[in-house]
């Protein structure tokens, strides 16, 4: 034993503080790589867990980050300590925990991809092989002893370590296989992306985690890298928090607002961790004071940043909630209007029928003095029924309840019949209504009833807004389109009115002076019907009092 004590003394190892701070750690990079991975991974895992603790994937990610943190701490002790007993215990701990990180990562990937818990028999298959590691960890199969030969402060690994490496490789291959099969099975692009990110994220996380050990173990005896291979290996650990962050992001991706807060908290945690580490290296009082000031300032600014992000998130979530309420209210309002107009249409139609029957003498001869009132009542009820029908049509179009029955018909004959129907109302105003069309039929495949409504609406509008002069209705056809056009010498359209001409309830200020009964839904319905047939409609006017042109183009 004396010879061992002499040998240890000859190695001239530094003494460690708090297990992990010592000059035995030959490169400060090791502190940065371990602390950054430790703080950020555990911080992110905990934050995600606190926010969604009922979700199994967040619980599993939390378990992985906790195991990872224990591993990182133990590994750091192994790097720092000068006591062989501490090296032996913490080395055994890292070897015990490492395959658990892989097993829980596999469990995490399965639950994330399948959306359900791992069946019991698979749990046994995944975790039972770990029992061998657990049982044999305190035995010689795990660690053969302590290597003092080159003052390396290393434990000599037994066969159990190699068993764990093989197990880790198998877990990694299963994750890749699981991800590949699931990727091929998923049908949508979004589902495939999720599978790809979570699989590759986990694999890269495990590779970053294993990188240090693999590089160190494989190349430490090589002449090219030597002991420097352990330093290079530390760079891998910097990738660990990145991939943990990626996995955390994937879990909370549907709560996009929370991710901002999570990112801010992770950023501040990382900054404070890195600055805190400076205390391990600074030696002078001045530097210690400067680092302390920077740390306090970072802490204060960090808290302010987190509070501000949280405030913004609260506001945005509140707005989102209000928008949802508004959407619901709108839906309820539309349903109510639909119900009311439907009921009203029944009453008005009934009155119209009564006026029609009285006028036609079904209840006896109508006295001459009463006839004008009956006719007025009939006209008024007819107009009322049409107005209600227009509102109902607009509501149906808006709710997507209109279905088009597409059949071929002669559009020229249809327009001719509409013009003929409206000729009398134009004549009454002294407006000349003319119609020109090709001699041969203009065949078009569409919903004749709906198109009749649309074109009737346009011609009716033109007559209403043309107090005097002429209206020219024309129908032309070329190789690509059928063009329907009305040209009038009416009141025209101002620039202000033009902007919301085809919008829902969009009647202009000028038009209201001419047509006080306008519902504002007419042109909105026209636009929807024409677009429902793959066509387009627009208006042209040089301004108020300068007439207007309405053009409809339908595809051949």
């Amino acid at each position: 034993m004396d010879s061992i004590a002499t040998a240890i003394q000859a190695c001239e190892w530094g003494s460690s503080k708090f297990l992990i701070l010592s000059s035995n750690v030959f490169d400060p990079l090791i502190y940065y790589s371990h602390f950054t991975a430790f703080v950020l991974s555990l911080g992110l895992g905990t934050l995600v867990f606190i926010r969604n603790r009922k979700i199994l994937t967040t619980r599993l990610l939390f378990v992985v980050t906790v195991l990872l943190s224990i591993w990182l701490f133990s590994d750091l002790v192994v790097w720092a300590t000068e006591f062989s007993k501490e090296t032996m215990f913490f080395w055994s701990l890292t070897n015990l925990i490492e395959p658990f990180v892989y097993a829980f990562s596999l469990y995490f990937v399965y639950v994330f991809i399948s959306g359900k818990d791992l069946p019991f028999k698979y749990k046994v298959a995944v975790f039972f092989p770990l029992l061998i590691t657990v049982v044999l960890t305190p035995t010689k199969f795990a660690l053969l002893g302590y290597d003092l030969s080159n003052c390396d402060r290393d434990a000599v690994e037994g066969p159990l370590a190699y068993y764990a490496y093989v197990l880790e490789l198998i877990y990694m291959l299963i994750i890749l296989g699981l991800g590949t099969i699931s990727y091929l099975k998923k049908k949508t692009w979004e589902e495939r992306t999720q599978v790809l990110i979570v699989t590759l994220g986990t694999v890269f996380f495990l590779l970053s985690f294993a990188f240090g050990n693999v590089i160190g173990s494989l190349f430490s005896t090589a002449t090219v890298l030597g002991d420097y291979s352990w330093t290079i290996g530390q760079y891998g650990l910097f990738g660990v928090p990145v991939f943990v962050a990626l996995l955390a992001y994937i879990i909370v991706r549907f709560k996009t607002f929370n991710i901002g807060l999570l990112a801010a908290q992770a950023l501040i945690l990382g900054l404070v961790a890195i600055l805190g580490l400076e205390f391990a290296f600074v030696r002078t009082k001045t530097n210690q004071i400067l680092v302390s000031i920077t740390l306090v300032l970072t802490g204060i600014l960090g808290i302010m940043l987190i509070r501000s992000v949280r405030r913004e998130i609260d506001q945005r979530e509140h707005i989102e909630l209000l928008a949802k309420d508004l959407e619901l209210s709108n839906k309820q309002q539309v349903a109510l209007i639909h119900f009311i107009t439907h009921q009203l249409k029944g009453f008005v139609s009934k009155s119209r029928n009564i006026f029609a029957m009285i006028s036609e003498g079904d209840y006896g001869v109508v006295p001459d003095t009463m006839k004008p009132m009956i006719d007025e009542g009939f006209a008024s009820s007819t107009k009322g029924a049409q107005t209600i029908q227009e509102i109902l049509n607009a509501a149906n179009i808006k709710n997507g309840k209109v279905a088009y029955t597409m059949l071929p018909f002669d559009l020229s004959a249809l327009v001719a019949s509409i013009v003929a129907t409206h000729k009398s109302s134009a004549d009454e105003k002294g407006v000349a209504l003319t119609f020109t069309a090709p001699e041969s039929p203009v065949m078009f495949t569409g919903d004749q009833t709906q198109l009749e409504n649309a074109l009737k609406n346009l011609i009716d509008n033109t007559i209403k807004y043309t107090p005097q002069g002429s209206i020219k209705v024309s129908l032309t056809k070329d190789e690509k389109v059928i063009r329907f056009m009305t040209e009038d010498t009416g009141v025209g359209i101002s620039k202000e009115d033009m902007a919301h001409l085809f919008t829902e309830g969009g009647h202009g200020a000028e038009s209201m002076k001419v047509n006080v009964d306008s519902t504002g839904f007419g042109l909105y319905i026209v636009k929807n019907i024409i677009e429902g047939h793959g066509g387009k409609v627009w208006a042209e006017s040089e301004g108020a009092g300068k007439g207007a042109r309405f053009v409809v183009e339908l595809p051949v």
Partner: protein
Amino acid sequence: MDNKSKILFLFLFTATLISVISSYYKYQIKENYVIFQKEEDIPSPLTLFKI
């Protein structure tokens, strides 16, 4: 998570805890391990399987 799974994880956790405590007792308290002072004394991991 079903009860069978809970029992499995509880069993695994307990076994791991016992394993950690045993290792702590063996290495930290009893200091029961071999220290190799010479490189040639370090055995191969497969030595344990030799009969």
